[in-house]
C-alpha cells in the first residue's frame, strides 16, 4: 500500500497537531463535532485467506468511553494496533484527528503516537527505572522542560493514586501499582485518545475494578477511552458503549446483546 500523506507534505502528524492542552476534552456545550476516530471498511489479513478483521466500520466521538470485547483471538489487540500503527491496514481507512493513519510515513508515526496514550496488559514499564522516570518519559519525548515534567509527573501520580512514590523502583511495586504507573505515563501528556489493551488482564478481579474505575475517572476528566477486555465482570459494572468483535466483524452491542453476552458469561463461569 502506498504511504502517501493526505496533505502530501510528508509530515503527517507534527508537533503542532498535538498537545494543545485539553485537546482530548469534550465540550458539552458545543454541537456535535467531527468524530475523533473513524474506521471505514478496514480489512486486516495475517493469513492470506482469512481476514483477522473484515469490513470494520467504527466511529468514536470525543469524550466517549468504548469497550471492545470478543473471545480470545478475535482481533481486539489487532484493532488497537492498527490505530497506533503497530500494524497497517490492508484496505480501508482509519482517520484519527482527521488524518489517515494507514497512510502515514514511518517518520510520522511518532507524531501520531504522541496524540495517543497506550496501556498494555503487561504494563510495559521499565522495571529498573523509578516510578518518576517511567512516567516522565512520555513528556521527555515531547521535549517538555524538566521543570514542567516534574510538576506534571507529580500531578499525574496523584491522579493515579501514587502520590509521593516517584522515587521508588518500579519493579518493587505490586502489579496493580505498576499498571497505575503505566496509566500515569499514558495520560501525563493529555493525549486525545487513550487506548487500553486488556489493562486488567494480569490483575486479580478486585484490582481490575480499581483500574477500571481509574480509567473512568480519567474519562470523566474529558479523555476519550477505548478499552479492550474480555472480562465480562468489568463490562457489566459499567454501562459504556460496547463493541463486540466476532469472527473479524465488528458488532455494535445493543442492550440485548449485552444481556446475551452476560448470560454467556454466567453459563461459562
Amino acid at each position, binding site marked *: 500500500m502506498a504511504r502517501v500523506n493526505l496533505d502530501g507534505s510528508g509530515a503527517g502528524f507534527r508537533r503542532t497537531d498535538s498537545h494543545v492542552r485539553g485537546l482530548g476534552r469534550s465540550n458539552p456545550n458545543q454541537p456535535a463535532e467531527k468524530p475523533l476516530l473513524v474506521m471505514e471498511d478496514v480489512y486486516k489479513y495475517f493469513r492470506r485467506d482469512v481476514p483477522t478483521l473484515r469490513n470494520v466500520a467504527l466511529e468514536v466521538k470525543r469524550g466517549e468511553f468504548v469497550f471492545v470485547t470478543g473471545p480470545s483471538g478475535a482481533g481486539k489487540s489487532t484493532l488497537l494496533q492498527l490505530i*497506533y500503527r503497530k500494524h497497517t491496514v490492508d484496505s480501508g481507512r482509519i482517520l484519527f484527528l482527521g488524518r489517515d493513519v494507514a497512510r502515514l510515513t514511518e*517518520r510520522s508515526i*511518532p*507524531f*501520531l*503516537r*504522541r*496524540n*495517543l496514550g*497506550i496501556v498494555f496488559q503487561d504494563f*510495559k*514499564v*521499565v*522495571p*529498573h*527505572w523509578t516510578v518518576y*522516570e517511567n512516567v516522565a*518519559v*512520555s513528556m*521527555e*519525548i*515531547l*521535549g*517538555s*522542560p*524538566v521543570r514542567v*515534567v516534574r510538576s506534571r509527573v507529580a500531578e499525574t501520580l496523584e491522579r493515579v493514586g501514587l502520590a509521593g512514590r516517584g522515587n521508588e523502583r518500579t519493579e518493587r511495586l505490586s502489579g496493580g501499582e505498576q499498571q497505575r504507573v503505566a496509566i500515569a*505515563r499514558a495520560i501525563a501528556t493529555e493525549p486525545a485518545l487513550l487506548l487500553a489493551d486488556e489493562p486488567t488482564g494480569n490483575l486479580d478481579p478486585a484490582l481490575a475494578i480499581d483500574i477500571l474505575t481509574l480509567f473512568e475517572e480519567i474519562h470523566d476528566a474529558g479523555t476519550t477511552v477505548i478499552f479492550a477486555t474480555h472480562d465480562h465482570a468489568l463490562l457489566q459494572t459499567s454501562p459504556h458503549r460496547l463493541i463486540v468483535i466476532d469472527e473479524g466483524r465488528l458488532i455494535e452491542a445493543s442492550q440485548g446483546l449485552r444481556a446475551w453476552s452476560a448470560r454467556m458469561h454466567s453459563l461459562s463461569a
Partner: protein
Amino acid sequence: MDIRTTFARARRGFRDDLRLHVVAVASLVVAFLCLGAALLGVENLARVAERWTQSQHMTVYLGTDASESDIAQLRLVLDSLTEVAEVEYINSARARAQFAEQTEMGADVGSLPAEAFPASLELALHASANRTRITKIGERIKSFNAVEDVETYQDWFGQLGSLLDAGRKAVGILALLVAVCVVAVIGNTIRLAVANRRQEIEVLKLCGATDRFVRTPFIVEGILQGLTASVLSLVLLGISYLSLRGQVEDTVVTLTGMQVVFLGPLTVLGVVCGGGLVGALGSALSLRRYLSV
C-alpha cells in the same frame, strides 16, 4: 529535545549499565595511555631535533702542518660565508683538555698521541642554512691545503631526522590503531547497552519517540566514554611523568642537553577531542547496525 533531559537520560544509561561502561573505559584508558606515551616520546624527540638543527655546527680539522697564515686565510674565507655565524679556533692542547673534561679520563689522556687531538676550527652556522648548502660548503673547505678533514654532522642529522620521521609514523599508526580500538570497544559497549535496553526502547517508541530521540543518549554515552577514557589516561600519564621525571632527568639532560617536557596543550586538546569524536563515531556505527528502531 531538552538538553538537560538528554544528559539525564545518558546518566540513566550509565547508571543502568555501569559495569559495562566501567570495563569499556578501563580498556580504553590503556589504549589512550599507549598513545599518550608515544606522543610524549615523539614530542620530546622533535624538540631535541629542532634545537639541534637550530644550533648547527661544523668542525674543520686542520692538518698538523697548517701554518698560521693558512689558518688566517681560511678564517677569512669562512667569515665571508653568509651561513657561518661564528668561527672559533681550538688548538690541539685545548682539544685534549676538552676531551679529558668530557670523558673524565683525567691523566690518562696524556698517554694518547697528539694526532688524536688535531687543532680545529669550530663553526657555528645560522639556523637558516640548509643541508645541501652545508654539505657543499664542507666539500669546498676540504679542498684547502691546511684542512685535513671536515665534519658537517649531516649524517647524524639525517639519522635524527629519519628517527623522528619513523617516530611520527609510528605514532600515526598507533593513533589509528587506538582509534580503531576505541571504535570497536565503544561500538561493542553500545551494542550491549542497546540489547540491555531493548525493553525501554520499545517503551520509547510506543510513547512516540523519534529515532533521533532514541539514539541521542547512546551517542552521548559514546562521547562521554571517549572523553572520560582520554582524560583519565592523560591524568595517569601526567602523574607518571611527574613521578618519573626526577629519576630520568639527569640522564636526559646530559644526553640531549634538554629537559623532558609534558605534552603541549594542543596535543592534550587533540587527544581529548579525538577521544570524544571517535567515541561518537563508534557509537553511531554500532547504532546503525544494531538499533533497528
